[in-house]
């Protein structure tokens, strides 16, 4: 399959890239890892007249803790996240997530920023970042603005990014002591999108009561779903098995899956319930360490 013809631009700096976006508006798309965009172009689901390749811009690829946040550059490859010692030791939910995204070759190119900016509810980072309470840094002609991840996903394939903005960084609040997280996904085979997946990030106090909680769901709605009722239910409660089972049911009730080749609605709701239970149990265990 040959993608439609396009003009190729390769800026060396962020301001240069923003100027190009500003000039070309909707006709232009950013080429980051390209692992979603290029397949869509081959299928003619996307036909940008201009591609702005940001891969040569320096300063967009990093994983570092700074000023209370884990900062992930928009151009950071999934493979870099997967092999980061910092991520593996301190952010198990991110390690879980990146490990089940596509396959090794795709992860070598695919970027964390692209996974979010694509706005696909089947992608894996959106739920994880919702659970983590992350912030997205968008750079545009008027400078930088910070968008809470809860305000980022507007509708299917549509995010809060304006046509002349670039997602330059993701900021994850550094979790306090006694925090744990997990991302559990059921996929039919390596490389497939999730039939459903659940992200959980929580913090417990010294008595084992739930202080902070984030629960979010992948591929069971037009946008990534934040399971607010389940979160509200658990906040302040002791995280015993009964409370977890009840929260898992609430999360399943908040899912709005469609029947497709991955299964019927009831199956996916049941799946969310089970995955939510297991993710909560695993997060609780990790918080205890």
């Amino acid at each position, binding site marked *: 399959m040959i993608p439609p*013809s396009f003009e190729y631009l390769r800026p060396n700096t962020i301001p240069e890239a923003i100027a190009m976006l500003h000039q070309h508006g909707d006709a232009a798309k950013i080429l980051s890892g390209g692992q979603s965009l290029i397949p869509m172009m081959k299928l003619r689901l996307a036909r940008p007249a201009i591609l702005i390749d940001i891969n040569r811009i320096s300063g967009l690829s990093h994983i570092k803790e700074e000023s209370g946040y884990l900062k992930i550059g928009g151009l950071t490859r999934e493979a870099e996240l997967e092999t980061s010692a910092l991520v593996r030791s301190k952010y198990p939910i991110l390690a879980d997530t990146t490990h089940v995204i596509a396959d090794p070759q795709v992860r070598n190119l695919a970027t964390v920023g692209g996974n979010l900016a694509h706005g696909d509810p089947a992608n894996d980072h959106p739920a994880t970042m919702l659970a983590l309470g992350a912030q997205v840094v968008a750079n545009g002609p008027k400078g930088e603005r910070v968008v809470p991840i809860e305000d980022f996903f507007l509708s299917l394939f549509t995010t809060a990014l304006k046509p002349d903005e670039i997602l330059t960084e993701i900021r994850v609040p550094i979790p306090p002591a006694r925090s744990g997280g997990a991302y559990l996904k059921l996929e039919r085979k390596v490389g497939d999108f999730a039939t459903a997946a659940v992200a959980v990030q929580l913090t417990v106090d010294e008595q084992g009561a739930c202080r902070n909680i984030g629960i979010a769901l992948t591929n069971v709605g037009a946008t990534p779903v934040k399971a607010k009722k389940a979160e509200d239910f658990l906040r302040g409660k002791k995280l015993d098995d009964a409370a977890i089972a009840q929260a898992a049911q609430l999360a399943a009730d908040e899912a709005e899956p469609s029947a497709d080749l991955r299964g019927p609605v009831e199956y996916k709701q049941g799946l969310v319930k089970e995955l939510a239970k297991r993710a909560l149990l695993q997060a609780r265990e990790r918080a205890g360490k």
Partner: protein
Amino acid sequence: MAKKQNVRVTVNGVQREMEVEPRLLLVHFIREKLGLTGTHVGCDTSNCGACTVVVDGKSVKSCTMFAIQADGSQLLTVEGLLKDGKLHPLQEGFKQEHGLQCGFCTPGMLMSAYALLQKNSQPSEQDIRWGISGNLCRCTGYQNIVKAVQYAADKLAHGGTQ
């Protein structure tokens, strides 16, 4: 047609340069422009991994990258594994352990395995299975492919070259 742009790459140690349309995929550049047909087009949807090549040390699916993106890069394709007429230990492993039947997936398998061994010279069976999880084989059931990669890792550990 969009304006052609210059691509300069080093492929298997040889510098190549030409004007290409931006939409030309890396796999078509390699096969049709450079004439290196060892790299295969399988599914053309970044599922099967038959088109896997190594770009600047990383395995990528060359059906899901534009040739223009590889400008300035070092490419390694299956043709580059042979050195001085001698098979790479991975190629030898696939031969010795019957790691292929029809052979269609083999170039991609070799390049994924090559990238894996560059990062992890003593992979466990699980590491190998994970390393080739982006490559599909419809003949072997993977058992002998895993053995072939283990063969190469052992050979490289005991003084094999490359």
